[in-house]
Each structure stands twice: as structure tokens, then as C-alpha cells.
């Protein structure tokens, strides 16, 4: 156990564990020290210097985030020297920042703005530097916009892209006054190795990196009487949305969200969880087919391990960095795109609507989904399958603009068709969820029995560890699956692309003999997605995870194949899993991309 040491903070004696930083020690005492470059997800940079504090006896101030407490330290977090310096630093940041706040997407949710307000920076004596630099806004990506004039060089995005994602799309370029955050050779964001995961957006303190928003487009569609606007909501949105609307992390707002969407004027409020269930049926069958081809037919063209394909950030990552493994990806589209393809075919037919007049909107915890919807192959319905993708944050903006008091809304249910879902669909929002849902279905398909875990909870694949492995032994299968008798199904789950790299490198080196791997681009899975409320940090991800599993536990149906609407879909329309219609509408192919 670490030893305790004695320090004082603002004159009050405090007992802290050795090794804690001044920032952590102060936080424990309820003393907040302002920060900008600090983020709980990331390594300490100590470069914004906003968190400087005075250590009595030292002439220079210390960055609280980067300085470990030492025995006997007397720390002042609010002395005149600290205040003056801190104010200077905020003024300096503002002088370099395009502080045209009323025209900024992050107006009201900007950490620099908050600090300026807290310290009442009422005048700007320093020269304004932003107008002297010829900044342009990079709007080329369908997911992310990068505006250097608002960048405060905290490098949170750089650390995010490298430490959490291992992608390094954003790095620091130049030095001195020209120092900036840049892509490879300053190419536009859509032309570099960027997965569009949006973690940089989620970690940016200002409006320098924001999602490309489609708020006005959606309002216009809603207002157009000739359009039938359907909306689908991803599993992770229901455990995050509340945070943007004044509620605590981990609040489940499924019913309120459906109620709000109805009040916003969507013609039909449906659920991505429905197509998550559909994904499981398709993907589960695909896995079993692959296993049969590999184990019985010894088909050399069948690739194992099979990897999940729900996360568009992960898809773009593998397309760039492991293109030789594209055949290992499940050919299943993501639930969003399955939904889009069905909305303009199955749903249109059932509701007797002209697909031409359907506008398909999705609410996603994700910015990569915007890119995914934009992919040229996602037009299998004959139209663009998903027209507009909004993040959880954008939905919150719609709700605020509509003047809805979210907390007071009476919960409502999703509409039908394509609004019914099971617990297996909900857990798609958490890392390990797709794996768990797939195992619940596949195991039952093969053996006729429930997965051998208490209350269907496959605990080994749950959790927030970067890479998790599990093995499930198949015993006494049904006759047609007898070749699987005694087979140990080996699975791996990874979240955050830096962990995906670990799994893929193990596969590449031939050190891993997995059958099935689930990979989610974002830490924690979709609930920690780039489109989720800001801030997202380990503590908040943990609460959202708990909420997801609670949601699963409370649902009457918890296995995808038991979803009555899914059964009806196969009966009326798709005929069978992996059938001809499925192949056409629900499966896709991938593109090899360059990797510089």
C-alpha cells in the first residue's frame, strides 16, 4: 500500500497517498483547479498551464496536473500570484483564439469560454492574433470539421488519436507561432488515414473539432409535408442523451427519447435495436456457416477469425491498415445500414409509401456513421439508405430548440414496424455486447439450449478491459451441427483502436486462433462513441455501461432470434437468413484503402 504524506492545500492540512498529483489531491478535497489540456482518458501533457498553483517556497508555479505531491508541500491554488498568472494565460489563449463565440458550434459548451467567464475576462488588452493567421476550415470530411482558428493547441486530440486509437491522423506540425495540429502533409481530413471515429471531437475543449451537423437538413425534412421522415435510434444513445439535457450520467432515457422524437415531428420513431437483432441473426448464421466451411468442408477460402462489422470506425481502420484481412470481416452491414436499406424497401412496402418520399434519419453515438451513410455502396434500396445521421449531441440540440422539457416528458414507446427489440440488441451499445448477443443466439441455434451462463449474462466478455478473451465449449449440439461437438469457440473482444491493433497484430503473427472477434472503434464501445455527450471519461463510460446492461436485464426478450418483429420480417420478406434478399440488402463489401 502506498504511504500517505502530509501536505496543506490553501492552509488546510491534507493526508494524501504518495504519488498523487496536486490536481488529484485538490480534487479529493473539493478544491477544483481549472484545466484545459488535462483529460482523464489521456496521459498528462502539462502544456496549457492553466492549472498552475503555487508551492510555497518556490519562485515558479507548478502545473498541478503534472506535479506529484511531496511531503510537506504547502500548496496555494488561489493566491494572487496564481490568479494573475492564470488570468494571463486565459487571456493569452483568447488572444490566439477566434473568439467569435456567438457563431461557434460549441457556444455554451466550450471549456475555454467557461474559463473566460469564470475569470471574468471582460477586456482583451493583448493583440488579437487569430486574424493575422490565414486559417481555413477543413470541411471535406462528411463526419468531422476542423477549424484551426479555434484551436488552443492543448493537444488533447493528438493524444486521443494516438493513445486511444493508435491512428495518429492528427499530429503537431511546425513550431513557435506557426505550431498547429495538422494531418499528414496538411491534407484534408477525408484524404488521410482517419477513421472518422470522432474521439478527437469528443475530447476537444473548444470548437476546433466538431461533427459536421445536419440539424437544419433534418428540420427541413420534418417540415416538408411530402416527406415521410423515419428516425432510428442507436442503443447507446438512450444511455447518454440525458447527460446533454441536464441529467446525470447513466440515466436511461429510452422512453423520454421516443417521446421527444415524436414531439419533434418525426413520422415514425423506430429503433436501431431492431436491426441490431437482425444483425445478430444474420451474423450468427454467417459465423456458423464459416465454421462449417472451415471445419467440415476444409474450404481454404473461408477466413477465420470472423470479425464484427458494426463499427464504421473500425471498418475504415481495417481498410486502411489491415486490408489483407478484409475477407475476415463479417459481410453484414451495420445495424444502421440494415435499417436504412429496409426502411426504403420492407417498411415502405408495408406502409404503402413511395421510398422516394421517405427520409431516413438516424441518431447515433457516432460520427463515423455519417461517413458510413455516405459510402457509395450504401444505396441498396435504390436510394441513399440513410439520408442524415445525427449524433446524440445533435439530437439534444433538436430537443432544446423545440423547447421540450425533456425531464418532464412522459415516456413513450417506439412505433411499429421496426421498433421492437430485445436486450441483445440493446447491449450492442457496450463493448462485448455484440459478442454476447451473437453467442446467445448462435449457441441456442446449435444446441437448442440457452448459453450456459447465469441469466444469459456472459460475464467473461463484459467489462472495460482493452482486450478480453473468452472460450465457450459447445456440448451436445443438435444433429445438423454435430461437427461442432466439443469445439471450443474462441472469442476476443477489443475496444478502442489501439486495442484493435493488439488483436490484429496477434492474428497477423499467427499467435491467435480466435474464431470470432468483436471490435469497436471507441473506448467502451458505442456508449463511449465520438458522438456522445462531452465530456466522456472512464467514470462516465462505466455508468453508461451499467445502464446498458440494466436496460438489457429489464427487457422481457433478451435473445435476438426471439424478437417477434424479426421473425415476421423473415416470414414476410427476407425468407431466410443469408438468403438472396438478405444478401442484396443486408450485406456489403469493403474497400482497400491506402495507408500513408
Amino acid at each position, binding site marked *: 500500500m502506498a504511504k500517505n504524506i502530509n501536505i496543506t492545500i490553501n492552509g488546510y492540512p491534507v493526508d494524501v497517498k504518495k504519488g498523487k498529483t496536486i490536481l488529484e489531491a485538490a480534487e479529493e478535497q473539493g478544491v477544483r483547479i481549472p484545466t484545459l489540456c488535462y483529460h482523464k482518458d489521456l496521459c*498528462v*501533457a*502539462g*502544456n*496549457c*498551464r*492553466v492549472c*498552475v498553483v503555487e508551492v510555497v517556497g518556490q*519562485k*515558479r*508555479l507548478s*502545473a498541478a496536473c*503534472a*506535479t*506529484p505531491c511531496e511531503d510537506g508541500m504547502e500548496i496555494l491554488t488561489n493566491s494572487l*500570484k496564481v490568479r*494573475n*498568472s492564470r488570468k*494571463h*494565460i486565459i487571456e*493569452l*489563449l483568447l*488572444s*490566439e483564439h477566434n473568439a467569435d463565440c456567438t457563431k461557434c458550434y460549441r457556444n455554451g459548451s466550450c471549456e475555454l469560454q467557461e474559463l473566460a467567464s469564470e475569470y471574468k475576462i471582460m477586456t482583451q*488588452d*493583448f*493583440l488579437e*492574433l487569430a486574424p493575422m493567421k490565414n486559417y481555413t476550415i477543413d470541411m471535406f470530411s462528411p463526419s468531422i470539421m476542423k477549424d484551426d482558428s479555434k484551436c*488552443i*493547441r492543448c*493537444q488533447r486530440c493528438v493524444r486521443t488519436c494516438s493513445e486511444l486509437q493508435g491512428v495518429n491522423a492528427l*499530429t*503537431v506540425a*511546425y*513550431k*513557435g*507561432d*506557426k*505550431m498547429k495540429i495538422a494531418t499528414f502533409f496538411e491534407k484534408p481530413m477525408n484524404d488521410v488515414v482517419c477513421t472518422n471515429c470522432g474521439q478527437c471531437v469528443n475530447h476537444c475543449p473548444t470548437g476546433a473539432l466538431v461533427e459536421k451537423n445536419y440539424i437544419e437538413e433534418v428540420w427541413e425534412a420534418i417540415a416538408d409535408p411530402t416527406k415521410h421522415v423515419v428516425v432510428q435510434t442507436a442503443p447507446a444513445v438512450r444511455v447518454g442523451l440525458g447527460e446533454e439535457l441536464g441529467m446525470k450520467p447513466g440515466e436511461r432515457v429510452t422512453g423520454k427519447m421516443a417521446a421527444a422524437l415524436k414531439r419533434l415531428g418525426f413520422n415514425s420513431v423506430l429503433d436501431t435495436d431492431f436491426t441490431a437483432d437482425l444483425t445478430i441473426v444474420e451474423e450468427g448464421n454467417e459465423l456458423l456457416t464459416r465454421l462449417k466451411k472451415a471445419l467440415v468442408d476444409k474450404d481454404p477460402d473461408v477466413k477465420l477469425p470472423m470479425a464484427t462489422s458494426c463499427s464504421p470506425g473500425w471498418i475504415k481502420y481495417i481498410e486502411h491498415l489491415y486490408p489483407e484481412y478484409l475477407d475476415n470481416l463479417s459481410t453484414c452491414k451495420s445495424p444502421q445500414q440494415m435499417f436504412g436499406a429496409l426502411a426504403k424497401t420492407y417498411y415502405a412496402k408495408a406502409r404503402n409509401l413511395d421510398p422516394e418520399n421517405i427520409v431516413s434519419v438516424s441518431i447515433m453515438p457516432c460520427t463515423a456513421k455519417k461517413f458510413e451513410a455516405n459510402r457509395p455502396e450504401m444505396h441498396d434500396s435504390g436510394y441513399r439508405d440513410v439520408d442524415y445521421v445525427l449524433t446524440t449531441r445533435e439530437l439534444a440540440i433538436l430537443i432544446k430548440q423545440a423547447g421540450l422539457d425533456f425531464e418532464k416528458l412522459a415516456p413513450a414507446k417506439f412505433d411499429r414496424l421496426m421498433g421492437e427489440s430485445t436486450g441483445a440488441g440493446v447491449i450492442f451499445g457496450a463493448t462485448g455486447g455484440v459478442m454476447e448477443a451473437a453467442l446467445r443466439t448462435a449457441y441456442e441455434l446449435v444446441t437448442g439450449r440457452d448459453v450456459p451462463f447465469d441469466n444469459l449474462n456472459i460475464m467473461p466478455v463484459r467489462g472495460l478491459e482493452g482486450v478480453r478473451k473468452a472460450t465457450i465449449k459447445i456440448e451436445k449440439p443438435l444433429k445438423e451441427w454435430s461437427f461442432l461437438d466439443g469445439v471450443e469457440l474462441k472469442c476476443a473482444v477489443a475496444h478502442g483502436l489501439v486495442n484493435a491493433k493488439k488483436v490484429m497484430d496477434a492474428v497477423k503473427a499467427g499467435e491467435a486462433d480466435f474464431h470470432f472477434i468483436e471490435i469497436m472503434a471507441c473506448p467502451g464501445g458505442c456508449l463511449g462513441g465520438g458522438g456522445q455527450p462531452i465530456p466522456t471519461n472512464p467514470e462516465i463510460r462505466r455508468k453508461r455501461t451499467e445502464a446498458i446492461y440494466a436496460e438489457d436485464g429489464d427487457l422481457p426478450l433478451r435473445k435476438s432470434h426471439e424478437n417477434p418483429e424479426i421473425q415476421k420480417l423473415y416470414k414476410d420478406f427476407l425468407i431466410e437468413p443469408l438468403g438472396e434478399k438478405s444478401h442484396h440488402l443486408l450485406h456489403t463489401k469493403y474497400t482497400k484503402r491506402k495507408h500513408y
Partner: protein
Amino acid sequence: MAYSYQLKRVDFIFKNENNWEKVLATTIKKKPEEIINELISSELKGRGGAGFPTGLKWKLTAEAKAKNKYVICNADEGEPGTFKDREILSRVPYKVLTAMAVCGYVTGAKEGYIYLRGEYKFLEEELNKAIEEFHYYCQETNLDFKVKIFMGSGAYICGEETALMESMEGRRGEPRNKPPFPTQAGYMDGPTVINNVETLVHTFTIFEYGAKKFYDLGVQYSRGTKLFSVSGDTPKPGIYELELGMSLQDFVYEFGDGDTKAVQVGGASGFLVPRKKFNDTAIGYQGKLVGISLPTGGSMMLFNSSRSMFNVLDNYLEFFREESCGQCTPCRVGCQQLLLGIKAVKRGEKPASYLEKLLRLTETMQYTAKCGLGQSVANSFSSIVENFREEMIY
């Protein structure tokens, strides 16, 4: 007027190095503790400018427990007005290599690196020849120590020790947070001694002649000699080895052109001393001898009355605006504000009182910048603006 000439020229550093093999052999016959104690008793302080006691640095690294330790010779000589390390490396490279090997012996490091400034590429070939011969000697005498050259790429900030290590590890040259200090976790997270070229040569002098001889030179708190790179308005620019502790007045008697208006001590990141303060200023490390004591990496720039102090400051600030690594706010934005600020005052776009606001800003930069560079950028600003305010305005 009584004129007491007190400059003491010395000649240790560039004295021939033919005996390096002998010095090395006799030194590493001693116990590491003995060598450390000798260095500590010599009171040698780092000659890069910061003045950390060299013996203590070696001691801390020797005491650190780790598999891999390193010795780095900082030859990223980038301070404007300094050119002594270049001379050392081209004239007495074996002294540097010997000192590094002794340091390796004392601390347990088996690898040494010379971080050579990008612009000194022309020294690389000769230096490599010396290293080759040095390795041959090491092999013959079973001394397990290897030296490699690491070429810098011309960024001023890489002279800062932790930025230098970042650069060596293949990353962008940006200073790290301290602690941990290099003696605990430096290059590749191993305990590392990083010394300026000149510091290493002084250790050679101490090994050769003993600590006492070194200690007897200079004054209290500032022992030994120092190389000075003298430039500017002087009839005899060049490199001089002088005893520490001299008064700036004596220095100007020797090197001035009779019309010296001010001397910039310590390069762009140092202080400007106006004529009226020459007598009160000593060159050495912080102590309480005469008035102010200014440490220096050795750059002494003399300016005569034909020079505009505004232009001098403008030039320094241009340099820093570009050479700040850009990582931390006070240095990156502060340098831009100082530079543009004095221009705005000069042009009358800002009132003269704006200089006071900028002076307060320099205090913040000193208190809050992440590294030694950022903390000292403002030295030239405050010393020039305080002493030549009218030149800034009119």
C-alpha cells in the same frame, strides 16, 4: 581614473589533449565515489547556463537503479552568440570522449551519445574518426563504453535536455514535465547524465589536475573557468577562457570598443546590462558577491552607441517567436505578444503604458512556462525594456 585590470585568462580547455589516454587510464583506476567526491569538491557547475552542480548530477545517476543508463553530451549549441562547443569538438574531441567514458564508468552507463546540432553537420566526419579511434582504445583496454553521434535537425528547443531526449527517441522535440528529472528517468526512461560539451571538458581538467586546482580559480559560488564567446561591437571577437567572477566592467575594459552601451550576457535568453550597471554586475552563478551575478552559457554580445536597443530586442523576439516549440501557452503566445506588442508601441498603436502590461506578462511567462527556455525568454525583454524604455517608445 584608477584602472585595475583583473581579467584572468586561463588555458586549460584548448591545451593539447595528447595525454587523454593516460588521464582516462588513471582516472578509472579510482573508485566511482572518489571521482564523484572530487567533482563535488571542485564545485563545478553545468556550463550550459543553468548551473546545476555536475558532481551531484553524476552522483544521482550513479545511485539510480536501472539496467540501462546513458551519458549524453549536449552539443546542440543553439543559443545566439555562442560558438564555443563547436571549437571544443573540433579541437579537443578526445577530452570530451574521455569525460563521457569516465562518466559511464562512474554511473554504470555503457552508451554515450553526442547530440550534435544540425548545423554542425560538418563536424560529424572528423568526430566520427575520433570516436572510432576512441572505441579502438576502449576495446584494447576492455572498457565497455560506446559513443554514437545523434544529429539534431536545427531546432533551438532541442538544446533543452528533455526535448533533446524526445528528439532522440524519434518524437517531436518538446520539453517534458519535470519531475521526473533525467537523472531518474531520461533517455529511454533510463537514468541519464546530460552535460554540456564544455562541462565535460572541465571534468577532464579536474581529472587531469585535481579538484583543488580548479576550485582555486574563480570566486565563491562560481569556481573554475569558463569559455566566453565574445561577439558584437568588439575589436577582438572570439573565444576566451576566463576565470569566473569577473565584473562586467573589467570585461568591457578588455573587450569593448570604448563606446560600449550595453552587453547582452547569456545570449538571447540572457540579460542585457546597460553601461551604468557594468560595475555592479559579476559574471558567475547566483551568489551574493557583487550586486547582481549573471549566469551565462558563455555568450557575451557587446553593443555600442550606434545600436538601437529596439532592434536588438526585436531581433531576439523574432527568434523566440519562431523557436518556441509552441507547446505551452505562456511561451508560444507570450513570445508573439511581446514581439507584436513592442512593434505596436513603437508605431503608436498602443500607448507606452502597454509596456507595463507586457512586463507583467513576462513575469507570468517566467513563473508558468513549462521549460527553462520559456521561463527565460522574457529575460531579454524585461532587461531591455526596463533599461532602455525610451528607445522602445520613440
